[in-house]
């Protein structure tokens, strides 16, 4: 059952999976005030949350709301994707990978981090502890400005998720999730573009994280190993984890109506739907349509009420 409609941040940080030309155009038009208007319009349209990577532009946007419209921050749930991998690629290009590792180790001992956690993770070299401290170093600025109760999930960026799968490290997911739950009292999840491989690895490890974020669209773009394989796996994994659908428009080659038609087939397996736009009016109309289809249903309203009463 769809519970959340999330605004994505691609248009805010110069990412387009359609092509870079479009990303650059969007980046130019997406100045701070326009981004803020997109967020407001999405909320008016029916968005319930914001999912974003730990890119400095998002911190700037959220800080802007924190300073000028704190009430608005309380109207959204947050799903934070860490780390922002592109910044590491750049650092590695400039100074090389060894220098990058050393600089990250220095960050572990920065003033705002728990020194004892950093020391323990380095001395024990346990992946869950190391990864936890590593992710924490990027999350701290967001935890300082966002309402804690609205931060619902921390998701591991796809680059790390895929490497966890590739190097057979899925046994570390459960302790990592526990670490994030204990440390921040939030849910934990994985983002992937290799859903079939992830599904196999999770089944093997026997642990399914609270959230899994993955592309779902009509044309099978970024759905590997194949669209059919992913569709089948989602129906199974959706019983154990909360699936967050991203790239539902296949970067723009699928219409919203087509996407809605497809997503309705998964309704029982999908927890959240994400879409992004650089234009306020588009954000408003897209979320209005999505909320009318997925959220404004009698049974959903009853469930929402029960949830509000219980939690």
């Amino acid at each position, binding site marked *: 059952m769809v519970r959340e409609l999330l605004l994505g941040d691609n248009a805010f940080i*110069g*990412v387009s*999976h*359609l*092509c*870079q*030309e479009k*990303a*650059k155009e969007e*980046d130019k038009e997406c100045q701070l005030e326009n981004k803020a208007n997109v967020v407001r319009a999405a909320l008016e349209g029916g968005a319930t949350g914001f999912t974003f990577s730990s890119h400095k532009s998002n911190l700037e946007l959220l800080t802007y709301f924190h300073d000028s419209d704190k009430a608005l921050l309380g109207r959204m749930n947050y799903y934070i994707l860490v780390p922002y991998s*592109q910044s*590491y*690629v*750049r650092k*590695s*290009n*400039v*100074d*090389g*990978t*060894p220098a990058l*590792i*050393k600089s990250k180790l220095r960050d572990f001992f920065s003033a705002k981090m728990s020194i004892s956690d950093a020391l323990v993770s380095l001395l024990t*070299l346990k*992946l869950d502890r*190391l990864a936890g401290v590593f992710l924490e170093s990027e999350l701290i600025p967001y935890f300082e400005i966002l309402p804690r109760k609205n931060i619902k999930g921390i998701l591991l960026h796809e*680059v790390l998720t*895929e*490497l966890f*799968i*590739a*190097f*057979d*490290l899925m046994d570390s997911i459960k302790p990592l999730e526990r670490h994030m739950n204990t440390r921040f009292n939030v849910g934990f999840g994985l983002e992937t*573009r*290799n859903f079939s*491989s992830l599904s196999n690895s999770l089944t093997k490890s026997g642990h399914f994280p609270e959230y899994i974020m993955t592309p779902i*669209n009509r*044309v*099978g*773009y*970024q*759905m*590997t*190993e*194949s*669209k*059919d394989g992913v569709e089948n796996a989602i129906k199974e994994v959706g019983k154990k984890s909360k699936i967050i659908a991203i790239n539902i428009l*296949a*970067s*723009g*080659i699928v219409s919203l109506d087509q996407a809605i038609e497809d997503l309705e087939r998964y309704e029982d397996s999908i927890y959240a739907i994400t879409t992004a736009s650089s234009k306020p009016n588009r954000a408003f109309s897209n979320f209005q349509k999505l909320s009318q289809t997925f959220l404004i249903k009698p049974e959903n309203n009853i469930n929402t009420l029960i949830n509000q009463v219980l939690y």
Partner: protein
Amino acid sequence: MSTEKILQEVENWKSYMNQDFNISIVGFGKMGALHSGILNLLKPGSVKAVVDKGRLLTFGASRIIKCTKFYRDLDEMLRKNNPDTVYVTTPAGSHYNIVSRLLESQVENIFVEKPPTIDSRQLSSLINKKGSSKRVMVGFQKRFALPFRHAKNIISEGEIGEIENVSSYIKSSDILTRTDRFDNIGRGVLLDLGIHLVDLLNWMLKIDTVKSSNFKKIFTNVDDYFEFTMKTAKGADVFVETTWSSPEHRVPLTYIMIRGSKGTLEVTEDHLRVEYIGNYPEKRNKRLELYKPNYYQSTPPVNLGDPEYTLENMHFLQTICSSEEPLTSLENVRETMYLVDELYRKAQM
């Protein structure tokens, strides 16, 4: 558009993944992690060993990753792991010595990241050492991006007519602060990034000569910006610009615009646009425009980094199984390295 013609690697891929691979990675930086990740996702457990000089990295990684052995010494890895295939993903300055050592060893298949060497003299030496029984592929992954493959087909089938002129660039924002890490190689953006575009242009259009060449230093002591003009074998001018210090390019972008007698083609890693001119009844539409999601639908079977990296790896594994020569073998990229040398020579660098 049918992708079959430009997507040979995916056909029957599971059949050649049945073979057991004993792969080692030399250099566990971002490219080493990327290739080993893709290889293990394609064929779980295929990367058996990693060699990296970094003490901290090998110690830490060996404690965390149990399915792969970590070494600091190449010879020790060769002796203990006896790999059939080795990926060389170290900094460019070390490629020549490492590949030379691997060519002397029992390793049959070698993949070396671009640039294969720092100049054509080193490359010729590797080709001489290689002999006929070994396979060496160079990581020019742009040739595996479907829009570029599609563009090559359109050009070779004469769809845009005779090539009149070409304008192109490859830009990134990789170097935006002062660094001296390229001093030891003595070459900069042209060798590191521009070489992709030189290789693509030569592959698509067959470059004949270098007309002019200039460079600028910005953040390093080598070339941070390079612009040059080349000529195709059929006499068309090809203008090229390359820099790694362009803040507006969050990720690297390769752009090629080709004006032909029957139309104009624009292509990047993720986009192809063709505008046909005049009355060509064989073309139903005056315009063809395709984006990344048009090309990569349920394919390739692994998605880590850009899809061309997976296709490149699949191509290499496929050539190993079929005993064919890779598209970007040392021999097939020799002209690219000659052109790079000539561009540096003409720029008096």
